[in-house]
């Protein structure tokens, strides 16, 4: 029942956004056509605005979201995000990085009904169907066009609190392009929705962490950086999970905790 309410609200939200945004989308298309600017950058801005709209007007109604930015205002580079749920690509849109962001997606995400069309128009990187050299080239282009790119190196949703191993392509690309790497931890959404797309109430905390020092990316082998980022995100998500569990316990048993505090 809860999932039904949430997804009905989601569909209405998508329809409302499409109605409100389509005149601007059309205008942007004509503007890009006349001025020769890349339309994909405009599409990415709409994708980002769509994500923010859906998080603020839909998702956070059922699943409160808190964003901590410990990056010192990092707004350029490869944002490396852990991947528990299909809500992750929406959640990253609220990170206040400058410019539009291009996410790397497995092939199926680019062929989803409705969303896939815009993902392809925005030039999302199809990691399944490109060679490594093509991935590097598209990453370079993304960083020079939009300044940021979000990647989920686990490659698939974990649907749990366990983090899978990372694929190495974007760590290699960061080293080749000397691009900043910014870890982003997302916790609390492993069941919002789960791997079967059932929604459960929860609380999400996102934390943008300090970029990996650039001299380390230059001097160390990619796999060392990759393992370091994996360790950082594992530790950070575990800490956030503890905070979320404490919050859930407090909500469920507020009288118990009140008496414990006064004891």
């Amino acid at each position, binding site marked *: 029942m809860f999932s039904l309410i949430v997804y009905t609200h989601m569909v209405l939200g998508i329809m409302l956004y499409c109605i409100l945004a389509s005149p601007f989308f059309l205008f942007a298309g004509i503007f890009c056509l006349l001025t020769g600017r890349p339309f994909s950058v405009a599409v990415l801005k709409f994708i980002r605005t769509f994500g923010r709209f859906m998080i603020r007007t839909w998702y956070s109604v059922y699943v409160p979201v808190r964003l901590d930015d410990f990056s010192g205002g990092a707004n350029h580079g490869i944002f490396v995000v852990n991947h528990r749920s299909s809500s992750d690509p929406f959640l990253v849109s609220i990170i206040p990085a400058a410019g539009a962001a291009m996410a790397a997606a497995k092939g199926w995400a680019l062929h989803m009904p409705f969303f896939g069309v815009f993902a392809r128009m925005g030039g999302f990187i199809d990691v399944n169907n490109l060679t490594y050299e093509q991935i590097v080239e598209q990453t370079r282009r993304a960083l020079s066009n939009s300044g940021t790119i979000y990647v989920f190196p686990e490659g698939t949703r974990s649907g749990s609190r366990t983090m899978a*191993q990372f694929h*190495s*392509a974007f760590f*290699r690309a960061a080293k080749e392009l000397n691009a900043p790497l910014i870890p982003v931890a997302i916790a609390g959404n492993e069941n919002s929705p789960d791997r079967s797309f059932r929604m459960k109430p929860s609380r999400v905390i996102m934390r943008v962490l300090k970029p990996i020092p650039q001299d380390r990316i230059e001097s160390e*082998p990619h*796999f*060392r950086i*990759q*393992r370091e980022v*994996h360790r950082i995100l594992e530790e950070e998500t575990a800490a956030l999970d503890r905070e979320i569990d404490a919050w859930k316990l407090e909500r469920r048993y507020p009288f118990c905790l009140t008496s414990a505090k006064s004891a």
Partner: protein
Amino acid sequence: MNLTRDEIIEAVNSALVNEMELDPADLAPEKTFFDDLGLDSLDMVDLMIGLQRKFGVSLRENEEIKTVRTLKDVYDFFEKNQAMLTAQAEAAKKAAEAARQEPPPATPEN
């Protein structure tokens, strides 16, 4: 290349430790390359280059090596294919020698 299984295991493990900085304590035969050791397909290419250097063989045209999933698969591959890989390496060496000994093509006079 005429190694015992233990020597093959030692050589493969040392390639993993030296090239990929893996912890020797993590290298058990049943471990899978990606899920347990965190080595994806790009890392496997680097590993194969390292193993080629270590064993003095070429794995470029070999389709079987591309199917390995666990450490045990790699140990079994080198143990089973020692003779074939050694013959290939010797043939490649002979071809390189022959190419070196061929007289250079005559340059046209001006």
